[in-house]
């Protein structure tokens, strides 16, 4: 057999091995969570807030963390979109391709992308102390928004950079101002926005370090932005730290719920993406 066919076979084999390895890890993680978490999962878990002594094996559930996480994810995603869409639009429609500002901005977002969330948390915490704020839902939303903005901007920007020049030209030729091209641009990069949102939601809902200092943790459901809020990752953390095996199992059920929420959001995201990208050129 000729050398290049052998190469082809080896390369293909390596790709399959790599894919299987990733798949095996994912299956292993989900299996572990499922094995320990599923038996402990019951309606009480997802419908009630922790009763007294919950972390020592008492009754109740983690509704506080579920609601807290959803609030934070929802709030920060909306806030993040509102801030990053104008940035992406400005970078790609207003600035020329060789703009220095665009270069520096993209570099800055790349750096921000890599900063660990605990640093965002600590940064936000010092500001909150300065402002005299307590740990609160508002603080949590703020820090998670900061955390996901680079993800939003960079992943939308990748798609927006592919905007066909002809498309913008055609829109200008109809007498559109730069601002008026926004409908066209948004429709064209809709799949990118959806992907960016999915990535951001994944990071936002799974983040523990950022919200630890800023949103705090509580057994009740927040009714205003100034009250502290519990989150699922922290809930997992606190239950897992318990020496009681039953409580540890509950940590796995909480993780299962977290994964389920991410799954539902991903599927919804895919459906919405398909709907919005049907017009893409």
């Amino acid at each position, binding site marked *: 057999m000729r050398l290049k066919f052998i190469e082809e076979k080896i390369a293909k084999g390596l790709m399959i091995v790599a894919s299987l390895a990733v798949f095996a890890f994912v299956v292993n993680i989900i299996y572990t969570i499922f094995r320990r978490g599923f038996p402990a999962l019951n309606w009480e878990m997802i419908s009630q807030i922790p009763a007294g002594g919950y972390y020592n094996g008492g009754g109740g559930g983690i509704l506080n963390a579920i609601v807290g996480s959803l609030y934070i994810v929802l709030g920060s995603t909306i806030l993040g979109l509102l801030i990053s869409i104008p940035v992406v639009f400005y970078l790609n429609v207003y600035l020329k*391709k060789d703009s220095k500002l665009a270069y520096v901005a993209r570099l800055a977002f790349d750096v921000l992308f890599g900063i660990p969330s605990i640093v965002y948390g600590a940064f936000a915490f010092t500001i909150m102390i300065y402002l005299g704020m307590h740990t609160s839902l508002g603080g949590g939303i703020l820090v998670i928004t900061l955390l996901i903005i680079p993800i939003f901007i960079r992943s939308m920007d990748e798609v927006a950079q592919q905007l066909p020049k*002809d*498309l913008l*030209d*055609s829109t200008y*030729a*109809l007498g559109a101002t730069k601002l008026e091209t926004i409908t*066209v641009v948004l429709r064209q990069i809709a799949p990118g926005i959806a992907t960016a949102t999915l990535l951001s939601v994944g990071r936002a809902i799974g983040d523990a370090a950022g919200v630890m200092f800023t949103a705090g943790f509580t057994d009740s459901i927040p009714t205003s932005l100034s009250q502290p809020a519990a989150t699922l990752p922290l809930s997992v953390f606190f239950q897992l730290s318990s020496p009681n095996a039953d409580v540890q199992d509950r940590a796995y059920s909480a993780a299962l719920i977290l994964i389920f929420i991410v799954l539902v959001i991903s599927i919804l995201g895919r459906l919405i993406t398909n709907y919005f990208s049907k*017009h893409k050129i």
Partner: protein
Amino acid sequence: MKSYLYQNPSRATWAEDYSFLNNDINKEEGLGIKKSYLKVSDLNLYIHKAHILKNVNLEIPDKKITCIIGPSGCGKSTLLKTFNRLIDDTEGVKYNGSIWVDDTDIFDKKTEITDIRKKMGLLSQRPCPLPMSIYDNIAFGCKMHGERNRKKLNQIVEEQLKAVGLWAEVKDRLHAPASKLSIGQQQRLCLARGLAVEPEFILADEATSALDPISSKNIEELFVELKKDYSIILVTHTLRQALRIADHVIFMYLGEVIEAGPADEIFNNPKQELTRKYLEGAFS
């Protein structure tokens, strides 16, 4: 009217003929279609250090098809993009001179760039429908310029789709994505989209070069039909296309206008040696 009949004896149906007659009468009374006017004087254009357009002076005749011909890289497309100032978005571009469209200098600081562009329908080389439905593609420009009345919009969409001969093909799927149309249909949709904002000129940049022969024939025929209402400026590097449909020809070479004039004069009796050589196919 004479020239119209002369150009397409077979196409002049009674109704078309009649409507044209009407326009003629109106024109005499000063109520008819406005004469459009485009004049370039002493235009020089540089991109970075390169001198792209050199001292261009020309006039575009009203309600005629003007073909800009010349070898690749001679500045035809750049000139076309200067007419609606899309060239402004090019990095390092500088120009001087003036282009008069009707009674405004389009380089004047007080001139609203969107007004100029609204007057110039653009048809690009590759069809480029907007990422929305067929209906919205046409309605987009009108909505942007303030037309909100649903009935009026429906009427405009139908009218313009009929004008480009697309109505029968798409009337049952107006809300389907425009990207699902064939490439030839997309190009006609783009033309209709441009017409919907009521331009005076149609700028076409090698508008048929990406199309199959039948679709390009469709577009060519549309141009011939549309010239009764619009002044059409067509950049082409297909000489045969220019021969078929041009009323007026501008020959460019290395950024300069070498010769301009009525089509039969240029094609049958070119005054410049360079033009003659180009037409004979000595270079392209």
